[in-house]
């Protein structure tokens, strides 16, 4: 507890209000934080669109090799962050056929927003899928059975019963994914040093000017994370009531 709290509180209180104000006015800082939020949001949206049906499949169906698929989904969590960046560069780089296609379509990954979003989706996806999968699992399949026995098709049942009941889990999943994306540094720094997301900016300030000058930006970013996190906690709180 103290071990976790003391460093954070110390950091939050270290920079003067002036320093914070200065950082909040710094155009580079604002741009970086905005880019962080923007790319994290995009990555979460992608996770929502592609991850939701996938999570439903994992929650409801049993098929041979399901454990393997679940393991693969979890992989990005355990891969060292710079390695994630290197792996993605390996695919989208110009000496891979896929990278060539992208290059010819005019999409550049290295050092672009598209690259950042790709990396963030990669690291955030498992968090989204696992949260939403648990959400779907906590809804009794009997509710869906009853719905179908009353004449609703599989798709009607999903949109009328499953989706509304899993709404909270989906929101929590999006926030989890978002939080994970905003906190990512190691993978992004490999793929795109520029445009600079906030953690990269903090790192650069730390390297160039030392601890004191990186703290105000860090505090601003943490504040944003905390707000997200607070949302998460408030949402997951009244979840205790049984469905």
């Amino acid at each position, binding site marked *: 507890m103290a071990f976790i709290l003391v460093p954070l509180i110390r950091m939050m209180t270290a920079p003067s209000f002036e320093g914070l104000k200065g950082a909040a006015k710094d155009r580079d800082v604002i741009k970086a934080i905005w880019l962080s939020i923007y790319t994290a949001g995009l990555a979460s949206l992608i996770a929502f669109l592609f991850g939701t049906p996938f999570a439903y499949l994992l929650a409801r169906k049993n098929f041979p090799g399901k454990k393997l698929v679940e393991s693969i989904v979890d992989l990005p969590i355990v891969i060292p962050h710079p390695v994630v960046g290197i792996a993605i560069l390996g695919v989208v780089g110009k000496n891979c056929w896929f990278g060539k296609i992208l290059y010819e379509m005019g999409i550049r990954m290295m050092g672009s927003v598209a690259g950042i979003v790709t990396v963030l989706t990669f690291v955030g996806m498992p968090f989204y899928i696992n949260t939403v999968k648990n959400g779907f699992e906590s809804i009794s399949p009997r509710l869906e059975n*009853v719905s179908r026995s*009353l*004449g609703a098709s599989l798709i009607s049942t999903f949109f009328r019963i499953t989706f509304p009941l899993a709404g909270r889990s989906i929101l929590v999943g999006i926030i989890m994914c978002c939080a994970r994306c905003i906190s990512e540094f190691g993978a992004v720094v490999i793929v795109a040093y520029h445009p600079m997301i906030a953690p990269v900016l903090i790192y650069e300030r730390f390297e160039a000017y030392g601890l004191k000058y990186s703290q105000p930006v860090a505090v601003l970013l943490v504040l944003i994370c905390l707000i997200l996190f607070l949302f998460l906690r408030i949402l997951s709180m009244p979840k205790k009531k049984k469905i």
Partner: protein
Amino acid sequence: MIKIENLSINLAEFSLKDISLSIARGEYFALLGPTGAGKTVLLEAMVGLVPVESGKILVDGRDVSDLAPEKRGIGIVYQDSCLFPHMTVLENIRYGLHFKKIDGNETKNRLNRLLNQLELNQLTKRMTINLSGGELQRVALARALMVNPAVLLLDEPLSALDPNFRGEIQSLLHKLHQDTDTTFLMVTHDFNEVLSLAGRAAVMNHGSIEQVGDVSEIFQKPRSSFVADFVGMKNIFPVNYQGTSARLGNIELELGRNGKDSEGYLAIRPEDIVISKEKLSSSIRNSFKGIVLKILKQGFHYEITLKAGGIIFTALVTKSALFELGLKEGKPAYLSFKATAIHTF
């Protein structure tokens, strides 16, 4: 009407073997069996949630084996009622109407009839989280009957209720069944429910059906030692048959009919054994002197264990009979039973 023909299912944990069953339109049918007998798998196969390996399921003559659950016309009510928690009571009941073209007037009439019969008029705007167990189950019944299914499956509908709510829902089920032409198929553990509600029943064990027939037949003429044991037939003995009599320990029983092959089993319900102080002179063919071993209170009755001719019998008597006869452990008594009370298998 629902008809099941040679249905087989193979799941990892359960399998059903060659199930055949025919339930007439409007019947109230009970499905009995110990935990793990495959009752729930059979229900799920009917609803269409478990793929059928071979065999057919027919609803009103239509083969539904390959249809999606929503096209089978089979409703289901689970023991935990499974109301949709994000809807009000009324929204729950009306849910099925979104998917069925039903005439508006008919809908209105049916809704009003169900709300009245199930006494749900006061609850329509409530969320399901605030309902009691009995109320939940009443709403679940209304929801299932609102779409007027051909067959309604009831998966232990009373087992999650407090005993004092059970009677109430039980009489409702009776009434609802009489008022519709829907076929009711109920899975239950409780013999009292079976005897009160169902006309016919089937007993399942290890994925197959052991016996199908009238409820009274199943309880009074079990056709296998498993069924006899399951329905609580306490006096089951292996015997040697000789013509119209059977040898059991040191005593010879009069069957009044030819027995099975040379060897087999016979069973006598404890209620069918008459206890007396003197040998009865009556139409009863079998009367033996024995010794009372144990007297055990069983609800409102007393269970008497007697030994006669080396065989231990169990009989059930009322309290007043116990006192009138002055039965005591260790004292002699006569036990008698009619030839027709002996079930052979």
